[in-house]
């Protein structure tokens, strides 16, 4: 019985760990310097060229850039930050959002 249960428990543990390590599907960056849509349109252009990105939403009121990725795709926080700063803005923080859970990991930059 133990011979059956042990691998089963091990298998379930691995699956549980794998779920915690699932790629995130959207990220929200808090960005300073976005004061007008005309200036911020460069972000939309830049992110829409990125293959991993499904949609991008710029929220001027709350100073947020939300990036939703295609299934199975993602970008690292450092890559995301580089894309935003190379557009001339300042990244304050980046939050990850996972598709299947409401877990939220704050990554202060």
């Amino acid at each position, binding site marked *: 019985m133990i011979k059956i249960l042990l691998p089963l428990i091990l298998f379930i543990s691995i699956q549980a760990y794998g779920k915690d390590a699932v790629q995130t599907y959207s990220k929200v960056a808090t960005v300073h*310097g976005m004061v007008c849509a005309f200036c911020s349109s460069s972000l939309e252009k830049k992110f829409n060229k990125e293959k991993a990105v499904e949609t991008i939403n710029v929220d001027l009121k709350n100073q947020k850039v939300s990036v939703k990725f295609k299934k199975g795709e993602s970008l690292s926080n450092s890559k995301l930050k580089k894309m935003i700063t190379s557009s001339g803005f300042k990244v304050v923080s980046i939050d990850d959002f996972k598709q299947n859970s409401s877990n939220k990991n704050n990554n202060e930059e």
Partner: protein
Amino acid sequence: MTKSLFFSVLSQKIFSDRIRGMKQCVFWLFLIFSTFSYAHPTSYEGGYSLMTEMHPDVQEISMIYSPKYWLGAGVVTMRAPDRFELVTSQIGWLVNRWNLSEAQGNFYLVGGLGYGNRLDENLQEGAVYRLGAQADFETRRIYTFLKYVEHRFTDDGSLLNNQLSAAVGFAPYLGEFDELNSWVIFKVVAQNEFNDFIYLPMMRFFYKNFLWEIGQDFKGNSQFNFMVRF
């Protein structure tokens, strides 16, 4: 003669009594873009800006490419009927940008070399250099802008043209990224060694990467500017 012909044709095409018909106006308005008061010496990384200024006193066209958001390189041509005409290269450098919570400030320097000539009785012509500085500070509600640029002959340092521009504006409502944004702008331009002044109230509208302005100066000259970044 070739240079004069070029400027002559350009001026006539862009802003002249010889432009006939709404079709031609619309064509050129869509073909040549800019803003009189929103021209930045740099664009976004990898972006192009094609800008024009269409006013009876002075016409300007510039095309800038920005390999980085802090660097722009391109060509500028200006013509003021009966005063001067010139074409110069331009390097624009974003010296510093302040990205604040709900505000942004920028300071630019520009420089370039080219060729210019007077169209008045002096008829001086030759190599010219372009030097200038520009600063702006804006929030989602308030806009301020200040720019100085001059062109001088390289051989004796004499002034061909200089221009000081200042603008303030406010947004009557706060539009979101995917909404039409509107601004009320008031701009003052001092040129020709500060002997001539243009006072220009304008309405500015932009939607995503399209911007256009309409206004009329105190002499009754109308102005329409259009800009798109791509």
